[in-house]
Every structure is written in structure tokens, then in C-alpha cells.
């Protein structure tokens, strides 16, 4: 019933992202978009670190890369990642949003415009307000909204901002998150 997942995370989210990536079942068959704040001048290393425990392949897409199910797309350093109509990713070097490029909001908004009610949006631990507005868009378009339980977060600003702005369907602990992910196809 769902067709894509978009995940936003910042400070303190690495552990839970790797947990999510290691929880996908063998028959999981949706694209996953990872918009994670990262050092802008470090182009390599992050993808490799995330790939180690992932059950699905992770790609740092080039501009206009075709979206395929069962793969995760990691926003490259110093680029915004947009999900475009026509099943492609578009990258952008536009101004940072909430001091961030990649911007979680922009990935969420564009993904929501494409996948509407068939999108799952997940906001994880982080230190600024990026992602809250994007998650609100996911909700307004009928998608499913999930936030990591702030009690479980190393840094709570981002999840708390999302909870106060958008209507949240599930507030999950890391274990609940992993359990939910493992049941998706």
C-alpha cells in the first residue's frame, strides 16, 4: 500500500539509521530516500559506513538518476535531493535551508508531491528544526508520519519540532521502529 519511504536525520541519528537499514526484510521493495545532515566538504566515507549493515543497496545518486525499488538513495554532500515526477532524482545546489544542504524539508516536500498518500515520512534525532515542515506536508498529502521517540533521541530538537508542527501517526522507540520497518514489503 505504501510506495516509498523518506527519512530525515541529523545529529545523533547515525545509529538509528543503520538500525533501520539493517531491518529491511528480504522482500522489501520500495525506494528509500535518506536526507541526512552531513559534513559538506566530506564527499566519501558516509555511504560506506551506512552500507556496512544495510540489507538493501545504498546509492549516492547522480543528478537525474532513475529511482528503483528496493534501493536507498542518500542525499550527496552539499546537494539538496529532490524527488521529481517521472521517477527520477534531481539534485540542486540552491541556498541551504535551516543552514542545511541537503535540506530534509526539501526532500520530504518533493517526495510528498510525487508519492502523496503512499509515502512514509520518518524524522529521527537531530539538532535543528529541519524536517518538521516537510513532515507536515507528508501528513497534509495523506502520507504516514513517524517520529523517533524524543526519549530515545540523542538530540531532541528535530523530533520535538516535528511533533509540535505536524500530526504524527506513530512515535516509535528504536526497537518499535525496527519492528515496523521489518514488516514493510
Amino acid at each position, binding site marked *: 500500500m505504501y510506495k516509498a519511504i523518506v527519512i530525515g536525520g541529523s545529529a545523533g541519528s547515525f545509529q538509528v539509521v543503520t538500525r533501520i537499514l539493517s531491518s529491511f526484510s528480504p522482500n522489501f521493495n520500495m525506494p528509500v530516500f535518506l536526507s541526512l545532515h552531513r559534513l*559538506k*566538504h566530506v*564527499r566519501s566515507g558516509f555511504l560506506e559506513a551506512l552500507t556496512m549493515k544495510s540489507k538493501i543497496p545504498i546509492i*549516492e*545518486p*547522480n*543528478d*537525474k*538518476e*532513475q529511482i528503483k525499488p528496493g534501493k536507498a538513495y542518500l542525499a*550527496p554532500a*552539499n*546537494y539538496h535531493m*529532490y524527488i*521529481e*515526477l517521472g521517477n527520477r532524482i*534531481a*539534485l*540542486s*545546489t*540552491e*541556498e541551504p535551508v535551516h543552514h542545511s*544542504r541537503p535540506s530534509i524539508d*526539501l526532500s520530504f516536500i*518533493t517526495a510528498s508531491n510525487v508519492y502523496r498518500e503512499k509515502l512514509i515520512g520518518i524524522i529521527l534525532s537531530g539538532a535543528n528544526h529541519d524536517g518538521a*515542515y516537510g513532515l507536515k506536508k507528508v501528513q497534509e498529502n495523506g502520507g504516514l508520519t513517524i517520529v523517533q521517540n524524543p526519549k530515545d533521541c540523542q538530540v531532541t530538537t528535530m523530533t520535538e519540532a516535528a511533533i509540535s508542527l505536524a500530526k504524527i501517526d506513530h512515535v516509535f522507540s528504536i526497537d518499535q521502529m525496527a519492528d515496523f520497518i521489518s514488516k514493510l514489503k
Partner: protein
Amino acid sequence: MAEIGIVDTRNIIKLIQEKYACDFSDYALTSFKRRLENILLVRNLKHPEILMSKIKEDRNFYDKFLDEIAVPSSEMFRDPSLWRLLRDETIPKLYQETPNFKIWLPGVVSGDELFSLCITLKELNLLDKIHVHVSSLSNFSLESIKKGYLKASKVEVSEENYVRANGKENFTKYYKEVGGNFLRDTSLLDNVTFELQNIEMDNAPSGVRLIIYRNKMVYFNPTLQLKILKVFNSSLQPNGYLIIGVKEFLGNLYNVNDFSLVNPSESIYKKK
């Protein structure tokens, strides 16, 4: 965040096409819409129709619009590893092969790549020996570049990049602060030629040895990307180089037979 619909976007594109014979219909939709939204927000225009009537009635406004609709480079010396490579290997090698050569920077907006290049050439003692040609959609963009204007928010990151690129000087040597504005050293541009261009780049220079066009094609759809690549192909000398953004990839959309990828990590292509 102001939002603008697809219908409004198409209407604006149509208006510009009719009034100024400039066709934005092959720009990538998401980023083009975002640029429009940004213009409405910054100029405090309540409705797309106000923007349309300004574009229609005021040629100067339209020129400024062309500057604002384009996405400026994010910083100077973006991807320091590329600038190191250009300074330590690529440019000296090209100079050795053919001392008289031309570098073309199409579609400039903020001039960050241009100043990065000119600083690089200066530190190679080649600034007065290599011809740099710059073209832009907007006269306003060209004039702000000639004044050396550098956005305050880019100063710090540009300096960090310059240091990572092993720049030879103190970066502060290349700009000064005047009344809260950061102005770059415009003597770096003495040997640069500037020209207006249209979207299709009809007046492309010929005999070019190196084109630097990074993170520009991301804002186009494949139709326009392919058109521009044809222009570059006829502009470049045999064995000329094309450098695009590190996450731009010519092989993603079509079989590109005119160029071969010679440096995948910095996206450097060579004309076959």
C-alpha cells in the same frame, strides 16, 4: 514558504517566451518553481500575476529576474580537491601543450567559479597568459561580477575551501570589506571577456580548451542538457575538457559518444 502552482509556472514561462523569446520550458520543474517562489518571497509579491506584469512591463526588471531565477554557485572553491587538481596538474599540463588557450565559463551567475579560477591562474603566474571567456543570461549578473561582489554568507566557507585547496596566499588578500559589503579584487578579471548569452548559447565561442560548467545542468531537463552538450562539443577543440558538477553524470540519460569520462571523482570529461 510561498508556493506557486504548475499552472502559474507554465504561464510565466509562456509569457517570457512570447515577450522575450527566451524559453525556460526545458528547465527542471522543481528547482524552477522554487526559484519563482523565492523571488515572490524576497520581493514580497503576493501573487504570481504581479510578477508577470512586472516581467512584461519592465525590461530592467526582467534582466534582474534572469539573475535571480538562475542558481548561483554555492561558494568559492567548492570541491577543493578539484581546484587542487586544476592548479597542480590540469592547467599546467594544458599550458605546456598549447600556451595560448581559452577557458570558457558559460552560465555564470555569482562569479564564484570565475574568481576561483582567476585566483588559481594568478597563483600559477598564468593570469595574463590564458584567456578566460565568461557568458551569462543576465546583464545584471555580469555587472555584479565585474564589481567583485561576494555574498557575505559565502566568505567563511570560501576561505575554508581555499585553505583545503592548498591556496598559496592568505585568502583575505583577494577581497576587502567596504561598508559591510565584501568586494573581490577585480584586477583578477583584467584578462576576462564577458558576453551575454541566451539559454541555447547561440553565440558560443570556438576553439575552447576547457569548459567549466559545474552544477548548472542539474537545473535543466534532458532535452536542454543534450542541446547544451552539442554546443559544448562544437565549441571545444579536439581533446578539450569539460568539467561538470561532481554529481552530474553524462551517462545517466543518454549514450554520450562525444565525451569520455577521464576523472570520475571530479567529473572531468574529454572531447573524443
